[in-house]
């Protein structure tokens, strides 16, 4: 006699895999994926063009990786795009009743969320593959070198990019409709970016300029920025990329481990949110 629990677990696994494939397939058949990749490559081409202009004007540039900036732009763009997509996707499935239908099938809240997460991380890797081809073309035209380290950096950055993607997942599980998802995602992003920008600006001022009210503000922003370094989903990918570019494997190990723990936290929160919020629109 067959064990019903084993059969059930198998059904959940099969359903999970179907969901993962469906989500990747849906993404690859959409337009936005290619639009974002094209936009990212246009930006990269502009940055590389600027670099060539600089070298032509100055006569020289000494650099380990002139592709560092375009690659960072591309990968951050990909991670934010996928995070926004996951946030919108979950709330859309709730809004359209897909979530309700799925809840009566062999789909648990874990398998549902993990299908999103795994699909988006795989989509991130596909994105890396697509832009890698484009970047290779840019590099060949410009005469820059394309080191294997850059390819490894792109692929290994998936672990740290997961922090942004899982954050998007939590936002999606939280809100009732797509508009709410987008607003929450943008609001939190803007707050974090403004604090970071303010911190960078105040940090660039000379100590003598920090008088009056600027000093306490600078201290407070510095404190907030230090906290944000750990709580902001956007801080893990740059940290991981920096470590990869600098061949700092200890730092990369720390950043990716922290990103994994951090992503697990968002996954857990997303599960709690999803179960409390319910599957109905």
């Amino acid at each position, binding site marked *: 006699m067959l064990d019903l629990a084993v059969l059930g677990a198998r059904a959940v696994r099969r359903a999970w895999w179907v969901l993962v494939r469906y989500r990747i397939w849906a993404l690859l058949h959409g337009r936005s994926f290619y639009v974002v*990749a*094209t936009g990212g490559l*246009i930006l990269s081409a502009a940055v590389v063009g600027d670099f060539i202009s600089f070298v032509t004007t100055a006569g020289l540039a000494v650099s*380990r990786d002139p592709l560092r900036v375009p690659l960072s732009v591309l990968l951050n763009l990909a991670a934010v795009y996928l995070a926004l997509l996951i946030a919108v996707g979950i709330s859309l499935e709730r809004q359209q009743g897909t979530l309700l239908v799925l809840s009566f099938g062999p789909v648990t809240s874990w398998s549902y969320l993990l299908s999103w997460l795994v699909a988006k991380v795989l989509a991130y890797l596909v994105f890396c593959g697509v832009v890698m081809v484009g970047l290779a073309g840019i590099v060949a035209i410009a005469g820059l070198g394309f080191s294997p380290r850059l390819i490894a950096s792109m692929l290994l950055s998936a672990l740290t990019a997961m922090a942004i993607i899982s954050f998007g997942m939590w936002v999606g599980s*939280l809100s009732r409709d797509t508009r709410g998802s987008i607003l*929450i995602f943008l609001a939190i992003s803007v707050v974090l970016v403004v604090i970071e920008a303010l911190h960078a600006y105040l940090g660039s001022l000379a100590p003598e300029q920090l008088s009056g009210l600027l000093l306490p503000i600078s201290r407070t922003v510095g404190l907030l920025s230090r906290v944000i370094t750990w709580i902001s989903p956007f801080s893990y990918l740059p940290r991981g990329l920096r470590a990869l570019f600098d061949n700092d494997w200890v730092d990369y190990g720390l950043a990716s481990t922290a990103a994994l723990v951090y992503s697990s936290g968002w996954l857990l929160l997303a599960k709690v949110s999803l179960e409390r*919020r319910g599957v109905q629109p």
Partner: protein
Amino acid sequence: MKCEAQRLVWSPPSAIVSGKPFRRSFGVLLPFRFFWMACPLALWLGLTLAVQQATAQAPQKQAGMAYQVWAFDGSSYRQVFAPEQTPELYLLIEHPVALSAHRTLLYYWPLTDRYMADWSGLNQALSGTLELLQSDHLVKTVEPTSVSLVQSGTGTSTPVVSLVTGAEAGRQYAAYRAALDAYARQMTEYDQAREVYEEQMAEAMKRVGSGERDVPIPSPPVEPPPPNLYATRPISAFVFTPEEGYYTLQLRDPSGQVVTGSSRSVVAFGPQRRGLSYTVIPEKKWTQPEQSLIPDETLYLAEGSVLYLQPRVAQEYNEAYYRRLKDPQDTQGREDRSVWVPQELVSDGVVEVVSADRTIRSITEQPYLVRQTGGTALGYTITEYHSDQTPEEQPTFRAYRLELDVRSGRWTLRMRDGAGQVVAGSERAVRLLNNKRRSWLYLPALVPAIMALVLHIWRRGRQG
């Protein structure tokens, strides 16, 4: 089976069962709401604390002990301030270090997050004997001596700074003063000669203006060169050359007591690796040279780029140690990172340009002269220096000139020392960028669009 599947399904949420509407279940919003509540709270708390600290404008000064250290940083000597609040001193091995002990007024300056000294309020030099201990065993005692920092080759591109002690310090300082006095005398004479020359020149111009022919043109006086020696006024300091390891350093006063606040842990460290760095002077911006410190770096050039390379010995140090050597109050350096420091110039060798394991060019070091172009327009020219052509001038710098007269490509740069051996760590990739087809750079951006099109056609083919 049906029952089992129902059990596996995430239990139909209470929201469905109870029909609890979305807006009422605030529980899930808790982290989000908490974030928004916590932000202003943290801001207010931070502001309150910071304002309280900032209102204490006048710092409280306390008499304390501080060392002024003349420490070698790999290329030169620098003065380092080590108050008693910083318990560790980081020093480079194999180079003498000088410490002078002082009692002064110390205070914390919140704007820069540093301890400072009010030297004008109190500056009492402390005498006694400096003791170096290792595992509580006395390994060295150092008596104070006269110390001066001497820089020879001042005004050249390769000045050398050394620490001179004892009677030699006094002699060097006296020599510097004598050279300075002689220079002042020569300058006075030069000024007088210059005045005479200008008068003669004005007279000659007047005669030429009045139509006179064969007017002798006076020769301008030659400006005397400044002294190529600089020495600081000798001070009394404790000088020793640290060996690699961890020590404790303390000052024992003439009565035999250890001076309060004089104890420091000393970390004497050496380089982790040695290599070769390049100071790269682009002809287009000779006043803004670039540094290439590690072999991982690539030199990117454009068509027609001309470079002047100055190879230097480079040493890799622990980042935290090196930063604290330069500033004992530094907290930014990390012990798991390293930093490359360029040092003295290397001139006895040949720089090679290699392509596919074949040396295509060997370059030797030459002296060069930089001249401002005439007229009001900005600009300069860099020409090879020949002492027989311009004996009154000194070369501006010495370097290896690199010019690649091709349109694009990739090469490797390396240096062979005087014995013909390739210097370890001297390899650098050189790439010539293609600046002719810059608009073509946007073509690869079409790759995703082409992929989308291919996928779409394939899908349509499968469907129909």
